[in-house]
Each structure stands twice: as structure tokens, then as C-alpha cells.
């Protein structure tokens, strides 16, 4: 199964959610996490492979811009159109306060530079919302457990 953590960007809160899910978060200083706030990685819009979980599921992050829920709906439809189901690919939207600001920071530093300031601000925003990310991932674990039980 593929698991996609979907956020406004694929390199901030969705990335941290993926690391929490994989139980590989080394530190609360997210600046040290490979790929955190790496706007070049997020530029294309392609899903970013993070790692495999203990069950062999492949974990990805994806940045959908301003329209996270619309992208979730589209991906759900696309999975069906391509002949797959939610047992093949699951999308978990990760919503936090300041998610639009993270997107804006990404766009600004893409145009004007200032990546280190963007990194510091992003780190601050995601740290402040870390409790929400933990809760989202916990809910997701429960949902997927139910899915496997049925």
C-alpha cells in the first residue's frame, strides 16, 4: 500500500507527519530532518518518497497548494479511474494553523530567496502546531487499523 501525507506543501507539516508515522523523528528541531523546507524538492508537484513503514507500506508526502481537500478528492477519484482502491493508496490530509503561511513562505523564498529565514519561520510554525500533527497521525493510525480489521 502507498500512504500519502497531503499538505499545502510536501516539505513541512506533511513531512513531519510522515516522520511521526514512521516513528523516525530524531529531534524536535525539524531543521535537521532531511528535506525539511527544501522548496526545490517540492517545486514539481510530484509525490516525495520518504520511506517504508514496518509493514512494507511506502510512505510519501505531497504538496497540493491552497486546495488540499480538493486534491484529496481528485486523488481519490483518480485512484478509482486507474483501477485501484483505497487498499492500494491512502491519502491523509494534514491540516495545521499556518499552513497557508508555509505555502506563502515557500513561494516568497522561491522568488526572492531568503531560504534560511524561511527555514527558521517554517520550523517555528510547525513546532507550534506539532501537537496537532501528532493527533492527526494518531487518528490516521486508528483509521488504518480499522481498515485492516474489516
Amino acid at each position, binding site marked *: 500500500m502507498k500512504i500519502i501525507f497531503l499538505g499545502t506543501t510536501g516539505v513541512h507539516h506533511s513531512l513531519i507527519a510522515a516522520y511521526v508515522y514512521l516513528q523516525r523523528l530524531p529531534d524536535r528541531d525539524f531543521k535537521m530532518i532531511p528535506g525539511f523546507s527544501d522548496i526545490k524538492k517540492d517545486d514539481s508537484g510530484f509525490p516525495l518518497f520518504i520511506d517504508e513503514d514496518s509493514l512494507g507500506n511506502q510512505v510519501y508526502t505531497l504538496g497540493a*497548494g491552497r486546495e488540499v481537500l480538493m*486534491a*484529496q478528492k481528485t486523488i481519490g*477519484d483518480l485512484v478509482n479511474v486507474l483501477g485501484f482502491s483505497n487498499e492500494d493508496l491512502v491519502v491523509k490530509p494534514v491540516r495545521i494553523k499556518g499552513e497557508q503561511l508555509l505555502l506563502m513562505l515557500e513561494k516568497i523564498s522561491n522568488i526572492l530567496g531568503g531560504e534560511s529565514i524561511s527555514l527558521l519561520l517554517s520550523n517555528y510554525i510547525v513546532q507550534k502546531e506539532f501537537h496537532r500533527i501528532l493527533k492527526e497521525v494518531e487518528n490516521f493510525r486508528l483509521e488504518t487499523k480499522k481498515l485492516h480489521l474489516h
Partner: protein
Amino acid sequence: MKIIYHCFGGSHSSVLASAIHLGLIDKSRLPSMEEMMTIPYYDKTTNEDFGSIRFMGIDEFKNEVYVLGKKSMGNRYSNILLGIAEILGVRDDLISVNCMNQVNWSMKIGGFTSRRMGLDKLARPVLGSGSRNAFFSLVNLVEYTRLQCMKKVQVS
């Protein structure tokens, strides 16, 4: 193969392109507004339809044709669609076609007035004129897409 035509609302340019692709409308002459209004989904979508992939039909080569409204997400949305297909291992089964480059101001103003403001009677003459002006550009886009399809089938 699956072909997804997408534009802002999934209501005008993408629907017209898919209708041309499927032969629902004659591509050799400009269509009238009445003809365009007979196309499924043309100027009939609501806000609920944003993000939904809607089936339009199957072409003569058994390709499935769909339309999608993706708001102002640009080419990034194509990459999202192709990226998902890629991780599912079916990248070559999908063609994603962004119709926004063919959309002119009359279509934008007419589409906004009709779908967002709900003033469809007022908007349709503007929309019709815009759609007619964009028609042959959309025909070119569809022809290019059909060639892409044929190439992909030949390669595989």
C-alpha cells in the same frame, strides 16, 4: 488509456475539448451556443464539482476521456495526477491535458459570471463568443493529444 482534460471549473474548455475528442461535436466548423449547450456538463457544473474527475465517454480507440475542474492550480495539478499514476505503476496509462492555455478573457468573464455569480442568461452570449474564438485552438490541442495517445500505444 485514460485522458483527463482539465481547466479552472471543468465546465467549459475541458468539456469542449473532451467533446471534440469524442466526436460529440463537429470539429470542422464553429459550433453554435445551442450545440455547445447539448454537451454534458457544458456550463452546468457547481462548486461541488471542483476536484471531481467526471467521465465523458470512450473514444474509438477505447481510451476513456474525463474532465476535471482544478481551480487555479496550473500545471502543478498535472504533475500531481501523473505522480499518483507513477507511484501506482501506471504512468503510461494516463494523459493529463491542461486546457487553460486555450482559455480567452471572454471565456473567463463569461464562465465566472455564469458559474460563480449564477447569471447564466447574461453570461452565455459572452461565453459562447469566447468558446467559439477558442474552438480551433482546442481542436489543435485535442489533435495533439490524440497523437500523443497513438505514440504511447505504439511504444507499449
